[in-house]
């Protein structure tokens, strides 16, 4: 049985239809990526699925007692709110120290436990958000543009981490991304959106589909090839010592 499914979903922002005629389902343990140009309703669809916006029409069906882990696009980190990483993991439900540490270790940021949230880098924060999302051992992990502000190697690392988590936790993953070239390699199924679903299927099928090429052009196909090339080779292939130095600093996993 599907974890979550939508039938003929329509979501409106005032008079405009942000999402319409969307039917989709997420099966256990699959990684599904929603891609689409800006304003194509990808985030709106995600927010409807987690219950943050109410659909104007259509139905959303969730598996009974579905556990969802949600990674928001960004956090409203106000420096006026003092909050350590550990205390953040207690929101909105308190968890034991053992559970919190295990989650931080899984996402490679256990050293950040006592740090203030407002002092973290973008990459560190994303991993902390991911740690928070896996606290309840989710069946479905939902990520909204989770790698915004990360550079390409950092994004690629992040998506690899998602894949690892899927394998270890056995959860399905639903994410929204505009970095299709980075995300494609780590996904089982792609849903290409522009208000409605233009096309869907495996990354290879979607990138070859005319509807996808209409939206993104053929240039992204080249970027995908480039990315695959880089993905096949290890990051160690980069021998410029200065570059590696900065790279290590930006990489949260090495903290």
């Amino acid at each position: 049985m599907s974890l979550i499914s939508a039938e003929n979903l329509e979501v409106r922002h005032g008079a405009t239809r942000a999402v319409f005629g969307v039917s989709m389902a997420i099966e256990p343990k699959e990684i599904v990526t929603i891609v689409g140009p800006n304003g194509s309703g990808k985030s709106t669809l995600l927010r409807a699925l987690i219950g943050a916006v109410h659909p104007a029409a259509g139905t959303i069906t969730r598996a009974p007692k579905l556990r969802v882990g949600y990674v928001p696009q960004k956090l409203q980190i106000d420096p006026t709110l003092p909050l350590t990483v550990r205390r953040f993991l207690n929101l909105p439900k308190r968890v034991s120290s053992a559970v919190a540490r295990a989650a931080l270790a899984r996402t490679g940021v256990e050293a950040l436990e006592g740090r203030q949230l407002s002092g973290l880098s973008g990459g560190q924060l994303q991993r902390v958000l991911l740690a928070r999302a896996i606290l309840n051992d989710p069946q479905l992990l939902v990520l909204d543009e989770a790698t915004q502000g990360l550079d390409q190697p950092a994004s690629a690392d992040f998506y690899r981490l998602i894949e690892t988590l899927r394998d270890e936790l056995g959860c399905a993953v639903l994410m929204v991304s505009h970095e299709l070239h980075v995300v494609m390699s780590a996904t089982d199924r792609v849903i290409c959106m522009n208000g409605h679903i233009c096309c869907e299927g495996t990354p290879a099928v979607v990138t070859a589909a005319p509807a996808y090429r209409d939206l993104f052009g053929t240039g992204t196909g080249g970027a995908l090839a480039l990315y695959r090339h880089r993905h096949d080779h290890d990051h160690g292939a980069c021998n410029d010592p200065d570059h590696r130095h900065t790279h290590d600093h930006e990489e949260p996993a090495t903290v």
Partner: protein
Amino acid sequence: MTLLDDFMVRALLAGVGTAVACGALGCFVVWRRMAYFGDATAHAAILGVALALMFSVSIPVGVLAVALAMGFLIGAVSGQTIAPDSMLGVLSHSALALGLVAVSLMPSARIDLDAYLFGDILVVSRMDLLVIWGGAILVCGVLAWRWQALLAEILSTDLAHAAGLSPRLDRVILSVLIATVVAVSIKVVGALLITSMLIIPAAAARLIARGPEAMAAYATAIGAVAAIAGLHGARAFGTPAGPSVICAAAGLFCVSFVVGRLRGS
């Protein structure tokens, strides 16, 4: 209850009660950037005083009703073509002006305007104490109940939705609590400075706190010390209660600023 016969004891209890009501809630006003919202609600209080006298209801009830109405009015008109801070400015100052005009139309013997603008400690009755402490306990109780949800909602409303919370309901709860604080604080601090009693202790606490709970506790303590020091000062120098308390709070903010800097370096 001979202790309560001393007006200064009653005044101090009222001051500390106000600090307790304002401490933790003030943190949310700071975190959620609701200072202008607080101002508008507090300024509406004068209109509440005038209406209460006009319709012969008790003053806290009149103030609470008008403050609540203001809170919901702000909720109804926000998100329109005028920027929220401008809209709050329009409402805040209009409410204050309307209140002052309404009061001036009352027979002059019936109202001591200064007392409601700047606070008055000389006439704190047992009933006032009951209202202030009842309000303080209510505010703190509700905040404790909604604490986790309110914190999560500051960080991300989507995250809160995903966790099954309802940020909209909690926004309403916060507005109601702020209206409650306005109604109970007007006696000690006066309508003009209620927002500062919410903001200054919380801001001072931010400089030395590392967690939200610690910040709320520090804010309450700083507010209480400011109330006690300010009320003693007001009595000694014959100065108005509200401004005296806020001056003390501002002094504590400076101390906290220095302590925070020294610790940080």
